[in-house]
């Protein structure tokens, strides 16, 4: 990425990108755009073809109220959308791609614009004090290594990437990443180019810092969840509200496996269990739920941190899942959301894999 297309951004990247979408609507390149809009105190994704409404758009809002992948699921689960463009964070785009592999999204008509992402502020901090926006970040954002077009994790679904890190003030550098992205910039007449050396330097530097920080943070978490006792303790405060599951972009099942009737027993059977153990925690389904969810979704976990944000008990559930995800994904050399052509490991069979767990 030697050169980027220059987008003027005197009023900041958010306004500039909203302006870009506005022009593309005016030129009928898209039927609608999907962007976060501020509504009263909250930020919500809104699908709109109305250029006036775009004035209220807040591209890259300080918090992630709803994961973009989930938004696209709602939009395209029952059939593809009209031709739309959307601006999302990398982890949202990657979640949307994972969901397409699970037949929960249809991204055929979606043009993705990604933006360099510093991270988002935890919802509870932001609601308590909105000036924490941009200062305090989700723990997983602070150790995120796929915040831009860096490393080998970049999502191939991105059509245009908007670079802001290390870029001159008053500008955004756009990199077309697909023929569609190129076509869009061409139609909008954005052709002035500029050297992107500074951006490359800046993002690579951050990437290095983040990689080191990630290693350190995950090692610490790994220590705390060691063994069954560590896990039990980590989740001991869990009240089973299942907010983590509800906001997880990957957990898409309408009726979760763990909510099945099969797991229920009769009052008498529970009493027998309590008798046998002396004491039975209610409910006894806690660890089964978390371990089950881990095994169900960790290969696709994009470490967005929604789960941790939504946990009313302040359990570092996002970090715990990220540790597990990193390890399970490493086994299959799989980067969730990286490529839509790459099928999910559990849905493919390779004659030569996992030989280390075979009987000798």
């Amino acid at each position, binding site marked *: 990425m030697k050169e980027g297309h220059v987008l003027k951004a005197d009023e900041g990247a958010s306004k500039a990108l909203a302006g870009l979408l506005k022009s593309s609507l005016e030129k009928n390149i898209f039927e609608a755009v999907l962007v976060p809009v501020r509504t009263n105190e909250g930020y919500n994704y809104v699908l709109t073809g109305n250029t006036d409404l775009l004035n209220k758009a807040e591209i890259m809002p300080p918090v992630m109220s709803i994961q973009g992948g989930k938004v696209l699921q709602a939009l395209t689960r029952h*059939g593809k959308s009209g031709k739309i463009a959307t601006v999302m964070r990398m982890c949202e785009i990657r979640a949307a791609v994972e969901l397409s592999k699970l037949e929960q999204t249809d991204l055929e008509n979606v043009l993705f614009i990604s933006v360099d992402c510093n991270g988002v502020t935890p919802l509870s901090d932001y609601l308590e004090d909105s000036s924490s926006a941009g200062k305090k970040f989700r723990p997983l954002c602070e150790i995120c290594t796929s915040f831009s077009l860096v490393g080998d994790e970049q999502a191939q679904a991105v059509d245009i990437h908007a670079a802001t890190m290390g870029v001159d003030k008053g500008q955004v550098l756009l990199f077309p990443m697909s023929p569609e992205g190129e076509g869009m910039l061409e139609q909008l007449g954005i052709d002035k180019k500029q050297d992107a050396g500074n951006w490359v330097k800046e993002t690579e530097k951050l990437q290095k810092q983040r990689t080191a920080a990630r290693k350190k943070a995950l090692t610490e978490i790994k220590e705390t969840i060691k063994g069954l*006792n560590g896990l039990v303790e980590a989740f001991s405060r869990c009240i*089973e509200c299942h907010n983590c599951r509800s906001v997880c972009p990957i957990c898409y099942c309408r009726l979760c496996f763990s909510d099945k009737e099969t797991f229920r027993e009769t009052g008498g059977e529970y009493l027998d269990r*309590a008798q046998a153990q*002396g004491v039975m925690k209610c*409910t006894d389904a806690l660890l089964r739920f978390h371990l089950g969810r881990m095994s169900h979704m960790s290969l696709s976990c994009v470490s967005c941190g929604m789960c941790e944000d939504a946990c009313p008990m302040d359990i570092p559930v996002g970090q715990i899942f990220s540790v597990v995800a990193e390890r399970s994904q490493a086994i299959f050399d799989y980067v969730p959301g990286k490529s839509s052509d790459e099928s999910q490991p559990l849905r493919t069979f390779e004659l030569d894999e996992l030989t280390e767990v075979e009987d000798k």
Partner: protein
Amino acid sequence: MLKVLKINKEVSAGTRDFLRYLLDSKKVRSVAVLTREGTSGWVSYSLISDPEKVAETVPFYPVMPYNAGKYLSLLTSKGPFDEPVAVVLRPCEQRAFVELVKRQQGSLDNIITISSICPGVYPLKTFVRENEDKLLKDYWSAAADGKLPEGIRDTCSYCEHFVPAGADIVVPIAGEQHTGKECKLFALTEKGAELLKEMEGKIEESELETKGTEAIRQLRQKNEEKILADLEKKLSGLDGLVEMFSTCIGCHGCRSVCPICYCRLCEFDSSRSEYEAEKYKTELQKRGGVRTPPGSLAFQIGRMIHIGLSCVACGMCSDVCPADIPVANIFSKTGKAVQDVFKYIPGKDIEDKIPVTTFEEEELTSVED
């Protein structure tokens, strides 16, 4: 006048003695009560059969990790307890369970309830984020002063049903100054009186409610006026509702922890509530913009309609809301409004039918043409 057994210990210790006695004398097979876990120290409901483990229980611990009504439903919905079980729970938890039983989501068979004149609980977030020792100290000293503890759940601070209805045994706490040195076990039912009979100690006769109870009631009424005053204004129009729920992230945690929401698959998670691709197009044309996922407010209003009559105002929903929306205040306010229409107090009596399941020829004439 009711039969009361006095134990010369603070209320939690006295109640533990009673639970221990119930297990030792085999009057119950198990007790279900808030218990402190060994390794983490966190408190959760446990089913205890081993009398030795009663020492780890913390009855009336000022936090509600789970509405016990929901928990009892989980334990008995597939089949009732086949032997007696004593359960220590708060008035709103008992009422929630009764509502669930009316909906065939559990069974009261073999359940003995031990409840309290309840001072309320702290929000879960307070408990997670603040110093536990200080909270406990503040709580029990406020109780022993006959006051309401500061910083309890909103719904607790204006709770009007803090004196339990229908419990077998009741331990007065709120408004009572003896709680630090004496535990009074009142028998409200025959079953309760029978259990107290053989327990060591002196049985006297006394009234359950005191001047202290009345003082707490008045305090709570005042709080209700204070907390809910401007809520009514906000709730009276669509704009107010939209604004109040504007930060909702759609996690539906309120529903998950609600003791009344028992549906395995919620109406609002069914495919009926989802938009087809075509629907987005028509909505776009009609309105210019569609909040996605759609139906955020429809969910809130729908849930209000579904559970309003049975809402026991326990406050679980507010506690788990990651967006700090005062869900419980909104739902208890609307719940009370519909409950008043039918003069229905949810969970008060298992014999009271849920109004929407009955038909009276002469009712709601005010809304007829």
